[in-house]
């Protein structure tokens, strides 16, 4: 015991350094973890405060989960979350890499810089602002797209109440926001590739296309794989802003815009059933956890240094 305190004292400066952060983790990460037990309770607020509310709420076992899985909701939100993220990952990867290669081949570096700066813009905008942008195109009576449709004599489309368009709209908006940023990141890696490789290929008479296929892409593959696996690890978590702001919280669209995160939030707001919403959140955390572990395991196999842990 004495040795233990001695160690504490010897490390006091370092301990002092981690202390603020550790307290933060404790309150904002570990306490909420304890709070997830309300997923097994019928939560009722108690005036004694936080702890009393949790401990005095009635246990209901798996009822909250039964509720989640008894309706179609669990299926819908899981499907939406997974499929959208899958589409974002695959299409995002193809487009970003293609754009990065394209940028690297451009002659005229000043223009290339200007293009890059333009492409980078969406990354810096909040989803609220992107939501306004989308509205200026999709508004039923004023939006640009319906006006263009009008020129061709087509009927205006009720964008915000017709679910069938939204899978495409959401994928488009998501790619619009992320491809520019990702391609610039890939471009940075392409710039790091040893030039002598290309020179050797050129001497062998390789065409431009062959150079891309046989040098650029293979040299990029570690970072591609790692970025992709990181994204796969997060596949159970949706981008709340995209799914909440861009469709303007329109009820008719829920079948294609509701993801786990928005479902949890709406559960809290419409029914006030904290236990049920927490159950949905816990379901996400558990499955998400498994996916992170698996994908990290795979990253480790490929490149030990890139693994998170």
């Amino acid at each position, binding site marked *: 015991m004495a040795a233990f305190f001695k160690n504490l004292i010897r490390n006091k400066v370092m301990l002092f350094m981690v202390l603020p952060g550790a307290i933060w983790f404790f309150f904002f990460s570990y306490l909420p973890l304890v709070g997830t037990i309300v997923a097994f309770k019928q939560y009722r607020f108690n005036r004694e405060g936080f702890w009393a509310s949790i401990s005095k709420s009635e246990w209901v076992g798996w009822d909250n989960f039964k509720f989640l899985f008894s309706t179609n909701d669990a299926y819908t939100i899981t499907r939406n979350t997974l499929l959208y993220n899958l589409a974002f990952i695959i299409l995002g990867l193809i487009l970003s890499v293609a754009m990065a290669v394209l940028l690297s081949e451009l002659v005229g570096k000043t223009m290339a810089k200007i293009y890059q700066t333009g492409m980078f813009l969406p990354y810096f*905008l909040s989803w*609220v602002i992107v939501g306004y942008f989308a509205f*200026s195109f999709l508004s039923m009576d*004023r939006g*640009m797209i319906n006006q263009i449709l009008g020129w061709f004599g087509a009927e205006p489309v009720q964008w915000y109440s017709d679910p069938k368009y939204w899978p495409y709209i959401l994928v488009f908006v998501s790619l619009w926001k992320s491809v520019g940023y990702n391609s610039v*990141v890939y471009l940075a890696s392409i710039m790091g590739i040893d030039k002598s490789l290309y020179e050797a290929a050129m001497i062998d008479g390789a065409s431009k296309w062959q150079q891309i296929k046989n040098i650029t892409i293979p040299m990029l593959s570690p970072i591609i794989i790692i970025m992709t696996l990181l994204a796969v690890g997060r596949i159970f978590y949706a981008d709340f802003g995209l799914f909440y702001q861009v469709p*303007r919280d329109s009820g008719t669209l829920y079948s294609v815009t509701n993801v786990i995160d928005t479902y949890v939030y709406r559960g809290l707001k419409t029914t006030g059933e904290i236990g049920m*919403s927490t159950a949905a959140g816990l379901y996400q*955390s558990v499955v998400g956890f498994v996916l992170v572990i698996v994908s990290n395991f795979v990253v480790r196999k490929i490149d030990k240094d890139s693994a998170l842990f």
Partner: protein
Amino acid sequence: MAEVIQRKKRDFHHVSRGANAVLHTIAAIFSFLCVFPFLFVVIISLTDEKTLATDGYRLIPAKWSLEAYKFVFQSGDTLLRSYGVTILVTVVGTLVSLILISLYAYAISRKSFRYRRFFSVFAILTMLFNGGMIPTYMVVSQLLGLKDTLWALILPLAMNAFYIMILRTFYSTSVPEAIIESGRIDGAGDFYIFLRIVLPLSLPGLATIGLFSTLGYWNDWFNALLYIDNPNLVPLQSMLMRIESSIQFIQQNSANSSLSMAALQSIPQDTSRMAMVVLATLPIIFAYPFFQRYFVQGLTVGAVKE
């Protein structure tokens, strides 16, 4: 032969002229697509309200007008207050998170720290499993009592294990152990070494983390959605959400009560909304081109080593 090589060499550096034109076109179109919505919103905000009602959102409106901006500036203290909230939260938040993250990351990067494994795991675990939105909401609002305070906008975003890992990697790659050792031999304390030797050497890393953090605070609306009811504490992004349903949010919270009923009836509602969007975006538009490279570094600095 030499000539052939010469030509091939040019081939290696340059795609053919025709292909180059095609590539330029593609890149230019994509780049334009990324910027276009913003330009469109600027145009809408400069359109005459009546024209808007009859023609819809047009690229070249029949009638231009500055009314929207006049209105926004007339009842400007709402916009200013929201700007103030956002700037305050962003500055304080970035500082707080830089302090927390850099200290924590440094401690767990030091081999001499006996409990570094414990605290590394303590941080990493939070990346793997989280309590989710609702338990966090309960802790912040009930236990910590932060609802309707600026801290509710600052603290939840202050730490992030991912940034800690990035910075830890940065310390261990760009601050040579020998320098720290020599500092120690000179009799400097851990804290002194951190402040005087480590921090200056890791400025690029800190800048990257700091800018990510700044962007996160500036664009945050989610915490305001959860925790802020008081109209005086509403940050910019959240204000944009509120005026979506009613532009009167601006005027209700304006100290300028000289607006008469008649003036209220002629508020250019739609264009004012877009004017607010433009005004909220401008600082970013002006700032980001200068900081681009740090954001590119962000992912490459820690997660991926070349």
